[in-house]
Every structure is written in C-alpha cells, then in structure tokens.
C-alpha cells in the first residue's frame, strides 16, 4: 500500500475498487443520526449533526483534531455515558428505534466498538475472544465462535497454535486485530472503530485496512480517522467535520475529488489540519 500524494488521490481510489459514486439516498440506513447536539458540561462539542450510516458500507468520519469526530462515534453506542457531564440532544436511531430508549448493554451487543489503542484484556488470546459471547450468555460451542471470529479478523493463522498464551505477547497490530475479533465474536450489526490504526506501523495498518474492506460483507462499519488517505482507501462514504459541525457528507470518491464546500477542499488539499 503506497502512500499516495494528495494529487494522486483519485487514481488511488480507482485502484482500490471502492464503489464509485454510489448514491447514498438509495441505500438502506442501519443508523440514523438527526439534529444531534452534544455537550460536555456547558461546552458544546457537536452542533446539529445529521447523518445516516448505510447498511453494509464503510462510513468514514474525518476532520482535524478536536472536531468532534470521536465524540460523534462514541454516541452511537452510548459510550459517552461513561463521562458523567456528557449530555446530548437529538435522536439516534438503530434500525428505526431510538437507542436512548434501549437497555444500554443490549445496545452495545448490537453496536460493537474498537478503540484507538489496542486494549486486550489481561487474559489468554482465546479468553479475550470468548469474553463477549460468555458474558452474553452464549451456551454453544465457544471454540467454534472463537475460531470463526479470529478467522474473520484475519488473525487465526498467526495465533492458532498458541491460543492460550497471553494476549500481551502479540504485536500491536495483532493485538488490534484481536480486539476486532473480540468485537466480532458477539456478531454486532454495526462496528465502530475509533482511529483503529493510528497507533500502528504501516504494515499493520495495511492489514487492518484490508480487513475492514472484507468485513463490510458481514457488518456495517463506521470509522473515525485522521488519515485522509485511509478514509479514501477504505470507505464508501465520508463525513467531514470541523469544529463540531458536519461540513460535508458525500460518497468518498466524490468528497475527495470534487468537494462542494471550500472548507472541505482546503482540508483535503492540506491547507490546514
């Protein structure tokens, strides 16, 4: 995976085979965010954001540091509730149902999350993947679920001979794929990824990106990234956020080649950020 120059972006998109210029409106939505305002205490982080997460597609959220992209992602599985001063207005629907009205543990079983830094539990590789199904009362053959999840996360071949070793013996990139496997083990309908490759080396990053493109056959993906090339390579739709506002939301090839808003153009051509 070569690092494309800014000018070479459009060429690169074509070569990765991302669906070109698909109409967003025609697709079924898995999640719908409408008129979302978000606050930490009195400080407003997000301003009237409305956005649809298309089913079985990769939606990327990009923007400079502090633009609210991670905050937006964390509202989708209500992870923001771990901060007591967090407050939000507006509506977020999962399959047409308001997520705020649901039991939060049920919601998080349906909407999985992978974090910026790999965070495997201090347990064996096997136990890490088995954790999600176990706490959700899974009674069937757990080893099969673990194998399937590790295969889906493209990690099985590397770890199959030492499943009972500590997860910390894996490299950073393997740990992150383990975390993806762990999230996949509960078969989430939506998988949220918060800059999943930002702490990894280029080769591990490439593996994660390949994996995500594969995974959209299984699940719906929303990914936060500060790496524009990454968004261009793997996503079908891209949302550009700036200071808490959604500036532009378009099919990825469209946003990177013919942005409608001058601020988007300024950002993707590297004039700020």
């Amino acid at each position: 995976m070569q690092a494309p120059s800014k000018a070479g972006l459009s060429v690169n998109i074509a070569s990765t085979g991302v669906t070109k210029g698909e109409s967003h409106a025609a697709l079924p939505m898995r999640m719908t965010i409408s008129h979302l305002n978000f606050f930490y205490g009195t400080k407003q982080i997000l301003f009237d954001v409305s956005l649809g997460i298309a089913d079985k597609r990769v939606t990327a959220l990009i923007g400079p540091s502090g633009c609210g992209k991670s905050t937006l992602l964390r509202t989708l599985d209500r992870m923001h509730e771990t901060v007591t001063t967090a407050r939000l207005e507006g509506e977020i629907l999962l399959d047409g149902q308001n997520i705020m009205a649901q039991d939060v543990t049920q919601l998080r079983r349906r909407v999985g999350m992978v974090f910026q830094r790999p965070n495997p539990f201090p347990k064996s590789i096997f136990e890490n993947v088995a954790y999600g199904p176990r706490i959700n009362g899974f009674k069937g053959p757990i080893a099969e679920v673990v194998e399937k999840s590790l295969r889906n996360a493209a990690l099985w071949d590397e770890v199959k001979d030492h499943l009972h070793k500590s997860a910390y013996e894996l490299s950073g990139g393997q740990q992150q794929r383990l975390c993806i496997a762990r999230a996949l083990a509960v078969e989430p309908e939506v998988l949220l990824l918060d800059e999943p490759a930002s702490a990894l080396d280029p080769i591990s990053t490439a593996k994660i990106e390949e994996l995500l493109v594969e995974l959209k056959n299984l699940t719906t993906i929303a990914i936060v990234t500060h790496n524009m090339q990454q968004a261009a390579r793997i996503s079908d739709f891209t949302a550009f956020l700036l200071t808490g506002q959604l500036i532009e939301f378009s099919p990825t090839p469209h946003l990177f080649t013919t942005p409608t808003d001058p601020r988007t153009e300024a950002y993707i051509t590297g004039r700020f950020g």
Partner: protein
Amino acid sequence: MSARLRWRKFVSNFMLGLTGVCALVSVGVLFLILGYLLYNGGTSVNWDFFTKLPKPVGETGGGMANAIMGSAKLLLAASLIGVPIGFFGGIYLSEFSGSFTASIVRYAADLLNGVPSIVIGIFAYSVVVLPFKHFSTLAGAFALGIMMIPITLRSTEEFLKAVPRNLREGSMALGASKWKTITSVVVPAAYRGILTSILLALARVAGETAPLLFTAFGNRYWSNGWTQPTSSLPVMIFNYAVSPYEDWHRQAWAAGLVLLGLILIINIVARTILSRGIAVPRS
C-alpha cells in the same frame, strides 16, 4: 581550582557519603536483628519446639506448638473479618463512590491505620471480651481483623484504580454491565496486587502483641475452641521474655526467630505472586 569550587566539591562528596551511610544503616539494622535472633534462637529451634506444649516452670525443654497453632487460627479468623470488608469497601471506593465520599472514607481509613494497636485491643476487649465474659480466639481475631481493614481497603482501591480506563471501556463496549466488568476484567487485572497487599497486611498483624494481650490472652495448653483463650507467638515471646527463667528466655528467642521466618515467608510468597502471571501494561 577556586576555593569556592573546592568547597562545593567537598560538600557534594560529604553529602553523598552521608546518604550512603544512612542507606547502609537501614539495611544493617535488619541484618543485625536477623543475626542476633539466629545467634540466640537458632540453637533452640528444634523439632520439639514445633510439636510439644510448653513445660511447667522448672522443667526444661518443651515447645510452643499451641502458640503456633493459635497464631495460625488468629490470622485465619482475622483475615475472614478484615479482608472481605476491606476488599469490598475498596471496590466501592474505586468504582462507585463520588470523590467526596471517597475522600472521607479514605481519610477515615488512614486514621484507623494510625490508631495504636493497644487502643484497638482495648476496643476489642470492651465490645467482645466483656459481653462474652471471657477471653477468646475470636476476640483476638476481631482486633487483628480491624487492623487489616484499612490496609486491604486502601490497597484494593489503589490497585483497582491503576487498571487502565480503556480495559473497562473494552468490556463495556461488548455489552458487559458495570458490575460484570468489575468482576471479570477489573478485579482479575488487579488481583495480584491486591493479593500481595493482603499478604503484607497479614504479615504485619502476625507480629502484633498489644491487641492480643487482653483479647486472646494466652494459654499454656491447647485452646479449647474459638471461644476460649488461646496462646499466640507474639504474646508467648512477651511472657517468656519478661520471665526470670533462663530456659524461657532461650525459647522466647526461638519463638522470635520462628515468627520472623513466618513473616519472611509470607513476604516472599507475596512478591512471587506479584512477579508472575499476566500483568497489565501501564499506559
């Protein structure tokens, strides 16, 4: 070289030497005590010491089997009282309470930790010994248990707090409830640290004499159950050391050596636990 620079070099070397000597003294004291105990008690520690009851005054020989057993029973019961309270209290402090409540409880625990052990002994005497009208193993264990609470509480809290936030989030993102996250991720990640400090708390109360003087009291024979007075190693050392008999002095040294050995073993076990298993990387 100017006079000022020479003076500064001299001060520097002098202070360096001084700190080194102080470090040496602090280690030296421990080895001095160890050596003294070995010299005086080493010859008296034999098989009889671990298996026989004390002999009546005037007869030489005998052992302290009842005191060793008594200390073991006291420590077991004290752990059963002190560890659960400290452990669950620590979980509450670290995971559930607001910062105001936590600071109050933390302060109280630190105060409790500073209460002189003799005062805790008097307290146990008035709330356990007086109502039941006799000295007992349980009263002694109660006093020692109270002493274990603040150490267990504070260390549980500290070790749970050291578990990185992203591990908790990883668990909650999979649909685990807060309680499930605590029991299956946070506590397992911290258990080695917690277990170590429980063992260190145990080692600390193992040598306490004052709280046992008027709770567990003492006994020349095997203790007749949990509600009866019992002998214990620290109290035996006290009684034998202040006695006028040469043979008892000898045995007091031996008991001191055995007690120190016991504490040393607990410490080594604690440190071994801390260095094994899957550690959470500090981030």
